[in-house]
């Protein structure tokens, strides 16, 4: 029987890793993901895991060790946040281009400067082009469920691509929630064994891992790398289907909340979805046709599937918890807007940057966005393309 537990996001991810018992965990602690690593260290010390737990001198070394271990056929996990993920940057690209299905648990946190330890999506958005699959979580339960599915998705032979499972720093990493922890044996059986594409320790089949390419082969190797990401959507849905059958909880590329007859909608990533659902409920009681789209899988980006939903709406607001200075709005906004370009019938769309450095977003702020969307829908007039929520002028 699944056990009802009160866990914060860090403990939830660590619990999944205890059950999965990867061959190697190499991680360097950084707020707000530190507790993931601490929990795993304790599980290993207490004999609850047989994982080779390595404590390197930096995140750059942590990811390097993950790459080496994964190339040797190991199942590998790491955890980090913010500056730690930034320090891993060059190794992130190596992991994905070598097609190594490392799983990383990320507690999203703002990037310096100024130094800030609180939650926003700047860190993982900075890594959005690194070739990693990115799955965002709304709560502890989703963080736990997503980590379990991440190993199956990343390690699938058609995908063989590393996966980041993210949760908002502090809001999820440090807030306890009521959730279900599945039975150890069921989780182990669900995840199964890794079958690596290649193994650098297989001396009967000597290979070079990480060779040099010049102008003659780099382009071809890069193109062949993208196949993993292109195959990922099908596998993500298959794994979600199997997960639902085994554990009862449903997942897809995104979650639709009260979207059936919605005329306007907010679309966002992560924990703010919980707050937004409350606001949708309140507005629905007043008869407003509002809905919410929570994107779970950000890379690969479910462009067509989202467009199928959004093209039926009159107005859409994208909420970005990261900025992209000099770009046409935040990263989620630019992806969604580009996805809609193919369609003649498309909604008016606006972007809001919110919650940088952990700035609160309250129900009233979200209600104001819906209010504006209804005005846009009624008048057809958009106004400012990019706005900021709860920012002092």
């Amino acid at each position, binding site marked *: 029987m699944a056990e009802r537990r009160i866990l914060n996001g860090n403990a939830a991810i660590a619990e999944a890793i205890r059950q999965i018992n990867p061959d190697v965990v190499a991680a360097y602690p950084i707020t707000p993901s530190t507790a993931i690593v601490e929990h795993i260290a304790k599980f290993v010390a207490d004999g609850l895991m047989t994982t080779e737990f390595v404590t390197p001198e930096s995140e750059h070394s942590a990811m390097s060790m993950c790459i080496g271990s994964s190339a040797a056929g190991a199942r590998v996990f790491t955890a980090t946040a913010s500056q730690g993920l930034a320090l891993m940057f060059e190794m992130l690209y190596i992991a994905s*281009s*070598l*097609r*190594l299905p490392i799983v990383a648990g990320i507690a999203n946190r703002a990037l310096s400067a100024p130094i800030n330890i609180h939650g926003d999506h700047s860190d993982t958005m900075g890594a959005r082009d690194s070739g990693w699959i990115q799955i965002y979580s709304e709560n502890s339960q989703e963080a736990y469920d997503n980590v379990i599915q991440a190993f199956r998705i990343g390690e699938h032979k058609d995908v*063989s691509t590393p996966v980041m499972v993210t949760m908002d720093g502090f809001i999820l990493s440090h807030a306890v929630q009521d959730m279900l922890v599945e039975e150890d044996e069921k989780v182990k059986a669900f995840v199964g064994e890794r079958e690596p*594409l*290649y193994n650098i320790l297989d001396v009967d*089949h*000597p*290979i*070079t*891992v*990480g*060779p040099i*390419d010049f102008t*003659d*082969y780099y*382009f*071809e*190797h890069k*193109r*062949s*790398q993208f*196949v*993993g990401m292109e195959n990922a959507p099908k596998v993500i849905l298959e794994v979600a289907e199997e997960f639902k059958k085994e554990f009862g909880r449903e997942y897809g590329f995104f979650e639709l909340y009260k979207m059936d007859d919605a005329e306007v909608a907010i679309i966002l990533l992560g924990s703010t979805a919980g707050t937004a659902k409350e606001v949708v409920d309140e507005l629905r009681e007043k008869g407003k046709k509002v809905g919410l789209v929570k994107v779970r899988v950000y890379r690969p980006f479910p462009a067509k599937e989202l467009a199928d939903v959004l093209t039926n709406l009159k107005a859409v607001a994208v909420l970005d918890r990261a900025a992209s200075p000099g770009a046409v709005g935040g990263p989620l906004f630019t992806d969604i807007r580009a996805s809609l370009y193919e369609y003649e019938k498309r909604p008016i769309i606006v972007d809001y940057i919110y919650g940088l450095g952990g700035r609160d977003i309250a129900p009233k702020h979200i209600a104001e966005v819906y209010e504006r969307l209804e005005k846009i829908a009624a008048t057809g007039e958009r106004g400012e393309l990019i706005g900021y929520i709860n920012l002092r002028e």
Partner: protein
Amino acid sequence: MRKMGWKELPPGAINPWAGNFMEVKTGSFRGGLKPVFHEEHCIHCLFCWVFCPDNAIIVKEGKVVGINYDYCKGCGICTVECPTSPKSLTMEKEELQL
């Protein structure tokens, strides 16, 4: 050597062909200059053979006999280290093969 297309490459950019540098002629690195051997001036001290970073000086029975242009990358170290006057190795222009 025919270059493979992206669909033919093994995943993860691995190289499963151990020792395949035998087939990769790094002489293509040369940028318009190649060393030319002048046997008449050579004293067979083998300085060029010692200093060549690519083992591209061909030596038979203790004597320099020529240059392996398949692997000579045209660095010119041999012509600098050559102690004879006039030099037994000189850099000369060659057509680039693009």
